[in-house]
């Protein structure tokens, strides 16, 4: 079977979705399919450009493929008689992130017009797919709420759970993630102002913008937290991440409405508890409060209390971490299952 993975490509930008696409490609080939990634260029600025790309998505043809797997907007709108979606996320700036500075589409007459066009495109053409799968229940819920469409989540596993290891529970909370407003590292820096124990915070990840990195650094300076907060403002190599996870007290991952959140899985594979927020989306699928981590409201004092709790009681940090690892193993997430569903 010839399978084309249709996804969007923003030139020069590479993130979790791109890595996931390549892993799916590998899994399809391992399954014996003749698979190829078709990455269609996409830019969303200015807003009119976004609509050009939606129209282009309807004009590309992948007739050589027996099956198309659509993953990202607007590439998932490409017409094909045998299309199945594994939807990473919609164009969220036309939905829940509309008008949000971090989202992209401004709340202006032009912005609203583009938003409505995006929604109409999704409403009209998403149902062309034979089946709709999503990355997670969070994405499925948005699709149900915003477009009235039913879908089934297929949760991707870690690429290689075996590389993660569990070392002694240290004195720092580790937060690996791209540094950006939506990942809310600023909330963690604020929380550190209220931490009474000797716990430290280590943030690691490339900044979405130099300004966002500087904002975090300025907050650290302003609050005199220089000796307790470390910012590794760059993409860290996998091996370094594994080591930082292995020696952490716990992991903190407090994004706003994350689609899925591999960080939580990596923490669990390293037998670390995850501290997350009630509104974090994907992470709350895995983190059960008091069982596999701590779930708190997105407030600095509440997060500080969570950090102090684990610092004061390493046995609890270890217990939650081991529970998280067992829970992840019990979920039995496998690429094989995802491929079978997408090729069914």
């Amino acid at each position, binding site marked *: 079977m*010839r399978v*084309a993975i249709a996804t969007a*490509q*923003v*030139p*020069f*930008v*590479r*993130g979790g979705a791109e890595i996931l696409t390549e892993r799916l490609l590998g899994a399809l080939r391992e399954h014996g399919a*003749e698979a*190829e990634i*078709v*990455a*269609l*260029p996409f*830019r*969303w*600025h*200015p807003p009119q*450009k976004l609509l*050009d*790309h939606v*129209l*282009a998505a309807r*004009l*590309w*043809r*992948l*007739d*050589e*493929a027996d099956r198309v797997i659509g993953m990202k907007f607007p590439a998932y709108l490409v017409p094909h008689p045998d299309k199945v979606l594994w939807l990473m996320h919609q164009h969220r700036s036309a939905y829940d992130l509309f008008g949000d*500075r*971090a989202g*992209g589409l*401004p709340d202006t007459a032009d912005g609203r017009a583009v938003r409505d066009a995006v929604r109409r495109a999704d409403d009209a053409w998403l149902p062309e797919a034979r089946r709709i799968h999503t990355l997670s229940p969070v994405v499925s819920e948005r699709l149900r709420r915003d477009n009235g469409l039913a879908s089934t989540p297929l949760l991707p596993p870690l690429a290689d759970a075996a590389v993660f290891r569990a070392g002694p529970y240290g004195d720092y909370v580790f937060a690996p993630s*791209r540094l950006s407003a939506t990942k809310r590292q600023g909330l963690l820096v604020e929380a550190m102002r209220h931490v009474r124990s000797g716990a430290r915070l280590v943030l690691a*990840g*490339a*900044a*979405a*913008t*130099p*300004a966002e*990195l*500087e904002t975090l*650094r300025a907050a*650290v300076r302003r609050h005199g937290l*220089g*000796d307790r*907060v*470390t*910012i*590794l*403002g*760059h*993409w*860290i*190599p996998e091996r*370094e991440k594994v080591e930082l996870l292995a020696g952490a007290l716990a992991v903190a991952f407090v994004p706003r409405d994350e689609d899925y959140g591999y960080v939580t899985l990596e923490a669990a594979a390293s037998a670390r508890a995850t501290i997350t927020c009630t509104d974090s989306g994907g992470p709350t699928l895995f983190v059960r409060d008091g069982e596999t981590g701590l779930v708190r409201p997105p407030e600095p004092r509440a997060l500080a209390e969570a950090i102090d709790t684990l610092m004061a009681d390493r046995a609890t940090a270890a217990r939650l971490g081991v529970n998280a690892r067992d829970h992840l193993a019990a979920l039995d997430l496998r690429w094989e299952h995802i491929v079978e569903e997408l090729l069914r």
Partner: protein
Amino acid sequence: MPGAERGERAVARRADPVHGGQRGEQPVAGRRRRAHHGRHAFERPDPRAGSADASGDVELRRHVRIVVATTFVPFRPAAADGPADALAAACRVDGAEADRVRLPRGADFALAARLTDVGADRLVCLDGPAALLPHPARRVWLIDGTGLDATAVRAAVAAAAPAVHVAGEDVRGRLAAAGVAAGLLPVPADGAAWARVVRALVR
């Protein structure tokens, strides 16, 4: 094309000032490092781009961003892919940010390509159909004669003049017959020659 997304993108290359002594700069190689510094489209260019910040601990550098574009028929090898990957790699060696774009050729290809904006400071098209992509700084280097039978493709190649090169005499002859002059730039066999190709196409 928004200036905010072109050229001015700054790349923070240095590590943390707080524990700078503990963890110095990590040489995170190639595309990964660059790719994770994407700036959101709606933000303004950072005025500090290209200079160190007040504390001197962040080095911000400008990169020329180059897209190397080809087209392909899904599940079939494309002659231009190899040279395109090598050109992108040579651009990175030269200090630029480079990314590849591969467009599927199908029924409504020309219109879809015309609607597609790849961004970047430079676009280098390695086959005729890829030359249909609109871009203010478009260079063409035809590896073979793919697509040149189509009038629209020949016109798109001609519109890139004088920045039109070909890898072989046969294609140069075909373009000359259509009234398009092209420089000869064979596909190099070694690294030093790739640097010359980068200079010819991108500088």
